[in-house]
């Protein structure tokens, strides 16, 4: 019996103590008509050796292509120490630190995480994680509605330049509560949200604006101007940021004159493997005065009965297990293990290391763009300053080009034509610090090949 330690003797003694003869009897309160007849659709058990072979074969099947896709998930170097420690049983197989005294390891780590994330985003407080970056935008929008009591509209402005999946998740998650998300247009020539277009909202009741920096195209928005515009009109500012970029770019807490009100994003770049899209983690930080409107767990430092310092979950009155239908969010299980990895990652990197990761990734993407735009039929879409990701325009359809690249073992980027048809045959590319000049050469050679075989548009 897989993972079940009971011997025949154990079972007999246990049944005797209960006063029944067979385990079956323990289910006698379940209506007989409902009992499962068979689970034929579940295959027979494999032992560990067999599943190991199967999984290894499946992994090999997907291979290790050279990946230049970013689009919200970035392949960064992950120090070996990160997961060697993260997967230690004491972190891996513990749960939410409800029993603080027996969970000081997790709690202190979360306190350290909150401190790092607050500093990175330039905000005073952080929670202990949300599901992912996309759902964090939804949570931040809901939080903005709670915080901005003066606004009754529940209108949230969202630039079209925000990750299209993030926008869809926000709509799916928050529209049921009546929030309305309105798109802000961008300029097809510079890839940025059109600041002038905001004038349209002057004098209207708007709850918040969510602004992604860098935006989905990698382009840097004029966050200062937009933040100041919003604050002047009582509109809250939600910053949606890539944590790696914050080693280099102005943190949300310093946007405009007063800083953004809430910062969110996906923590994946901080030591979390690509892993098909998850588990990642969402982060959220805010001003101290908003802390009681934050969703999710928060850890605080306190003392024990002898005055000794210790850590515990705090401000639980916000949460579902206390406040139930009136909680700030329904989140319970969060992404703790990924926060563990990220905290170790940030410790190893420090500000300087993280800045080098950002700078190297940025430089590599520039090198990539230079190499690719040397190829006939390939040019850059925007010349606006960007961070570590860039849009290319092809003179022929993107889809078959990507297919041909994939056949050569190169994942050439994210095809923008579905989400941004107005840009034409646009491709979003990214080369993080993990890519070498040789890799970039490989891509360039493969693209030269691919462009040849694809028919010009």
């Amino acid at each position, binding site marked *: 019996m897989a993972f079940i330690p009971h011997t025949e003797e154990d079972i007999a003694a246990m049944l005797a103590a209960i006063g029944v003869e067979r385990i079956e009897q323990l289910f006698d309160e379940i209506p007989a008509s409902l009992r499962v007849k068979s689970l034929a659709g579940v295959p027979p058990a494999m032992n560990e050796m067999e599943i190991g072979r199967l999984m290894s074969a499946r992994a090999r099947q997907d291979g290790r292509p050279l990946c230049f896709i970013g689009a919200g998930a970035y392949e960064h170097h992950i*120090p070996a120490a990160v997961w060697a420690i993260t997967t230690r049983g004491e972190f891996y197989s513990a749960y939410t630190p409800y029993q603080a005294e027996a969970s000081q390891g997790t709690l202190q780590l979360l306190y350290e995480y909150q401190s790092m994330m607050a500093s990175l985003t330039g905000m005073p407080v952080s929670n202990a994680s949300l599901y992912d970056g996309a759902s964090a935008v939804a949570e931040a929008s809901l939080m903005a509605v709670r915080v901005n009591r003066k606004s009754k509209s529940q209108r949230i402005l969202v630039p079209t330049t925000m990750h299209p999946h993030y926008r869809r998740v926000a709509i799916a998650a928050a529209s049921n509560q009546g929030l309305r998300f309105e798109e802000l247009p961008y300029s097809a020539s510079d890839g940025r949200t059109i600041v002038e277009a905001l004038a349209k909202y002057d004098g209207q009741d708007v709850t918040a604006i969510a602004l992604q920096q860098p935006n989905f195209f990698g382009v840097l928005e004029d966050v200062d101007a937009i933040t100041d515009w919003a604050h002047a009109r009582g509109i809250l500012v939600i910053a949606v940021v890539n944590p790696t970029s914050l080693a280099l770019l102005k943190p949300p807490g310093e946007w405009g004159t007063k800083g953004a009100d809430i910062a969110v994003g996906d923590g994946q770049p901080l030591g979390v493997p690509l892993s098909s899209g998850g588990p990642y983690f969402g982060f959220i930080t805010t001003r101290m005065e908003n802390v009681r409107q934050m969703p999710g767990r928060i850890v605080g430092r306190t003392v024990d009965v002898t005055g000794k310092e210790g850590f515990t979950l705090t401000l639980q009155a916000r949460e579902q297990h206390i406040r*139930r239908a009136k909680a700030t969010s329904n989140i*319970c299980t969060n992404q703790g293990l990924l926060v563990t990895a990220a905290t170790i990652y940030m410790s190893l990197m420090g500000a300087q290391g993280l800045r080098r990761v950002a*700078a190297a990734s940025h430089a590599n993407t520039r090198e990539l763009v230079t190499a690719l735009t040397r190829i006939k039929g390939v040019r850059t879409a925007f010349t606006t300053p960007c961070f570590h990701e860039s849009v290319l325009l092809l003179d022929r359809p993107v889809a078959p080009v990507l297919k041909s690249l994939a056949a050569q073992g190169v994942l050439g980027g994210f095809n923008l034509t579905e989400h941004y048809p107005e840009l034409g045959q646009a491709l979003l590319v990214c080369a993080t610090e993990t890519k070498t000049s040789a890799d970039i050469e490989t891509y360039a050679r493969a693209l030269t090949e691919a462009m040849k075989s694809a028919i010009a548009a």
Partner: protein
Amino acid sequence: MREKLIFDYSHPGRGATDQWPTHAPEPTDIPQALRRKSAPALPEVSELETVRHFTRLSQLNFSIDTHFYPLGSCTMKYNPKACNQYAMLPEFLARHPLAPESHSQGFLACMFELQEMLKEVTGMQAVSLTPMAGAHGEFAGVAMIRAYHRARGDLARNEIIVPEAAHGTNPASATMCGCVVKEIAVNADGDVDIEALKAAVGPNTAGIMLTNPSTLGVFERRIEEVARIVHKAGGLLYYDGANLNAILGKVRPGDMGFDVIHMNLHKTFSTPHGGGGPGAGAVGVSARLAPFLPIPIVGKDGETYRWLSEADLPQSIGRLSAFMGNAGVLLRAYIYMRLLGREGMSQVGDFATLNANYMLARLKQAGFEAAYPERRASHEFIITLKKQARELGVTAMDFAKRLLDHGFHAPTTYFPLLVPECLLIEPTETESKDVLDAFIDAMVHIQREATEEPEHVQGAPHTMPVRRLDDVRAAKQLDLTWKPTGP
């Protein structure tokens, strides 16, 4: 044993330089106005300091790998190491979520088969793996219920009925979906109060959220009647799968009449709890709700797996995560299910239930008061210490803290809220009789101590890295981040 903050190790100029890119030219093309002025206060520490600090921190935790962890409602069963090892094969870790299908067939095959297995064990018709935890699955489920009613033009249905014993996420999720929550009572025997239910349903009823076995540790015996009442009123039934472990292979939510369910893969299918997460809250639905499932879902065309998205499911409630949810968790659940296989599934239900009923019987014999003494335990059960609290001044919290000194993680305390001074105890099937016996001995020992030396129990824990912590101070004098002291 104390461990200072990582920031206390920090010295300007120190660092794990080996981890840093060697070549990192200044990004001169980024305008100064958009740049950061001062560096964030991340620690500056060596790799050894980092490893040592976090290794030492880890040792301050209780965990399944080190301690019995009978946290009711959380199913803290053994997390097989194989699930981690094979989910972390280099190719799986490196797979980009937006990789083309040509480089995804291995991964997608696992996901497709996981969907199929989950359908089979729950009796549902279709599954989406995308929700990232139980509560996320609840949100998806209620959102589908709303979408269903809306699609039928049944716009008034915005009430979700929830028994008072429900987990907090149930009402909170209903609220997140813009619903109004109606709580109904449960009977003295732990079942839903049928009269209260009848009174609650009506033309505004969107649905009911039920956990079965309930969080009271008993099976809802009149589930068929409940289903009839709700369905007749035009509502749908939502199944909170947190307690699926109790009935795995025994009875299926789909057969009980549920229209939509979530499963906590981090409970029933043994993916790690990770100090708070990640989880995975896959949802399953009956045929009529299938069009509303959140995307993406894995489909199969001939021999090729592919993502189904908006185009395939135009009525979908949409996306719940940037990509496909907690894929790495799903891989672990897949491996676990294949390890157990058909036979293993129903053994889970058998032995989780045997363990709980054994503990309940022994504790009752030892004089502890069961909350539902006439009922079978499911995979968990409730002890109430209201007598001890009243007569000895020793509360459930005191017992919980004293259990830590005995080397046992405490059961869930003070949940469900309707049972006073309660301990919700869930041993899981992976624990041996020896461990259960030792836990029972500890309870008996603490009970004796509570009589003879109550202060010692009230003052517990005595052997942990810290003594009992001041929660009130934590919430009043907020200290949520370390701040660098001036230079």
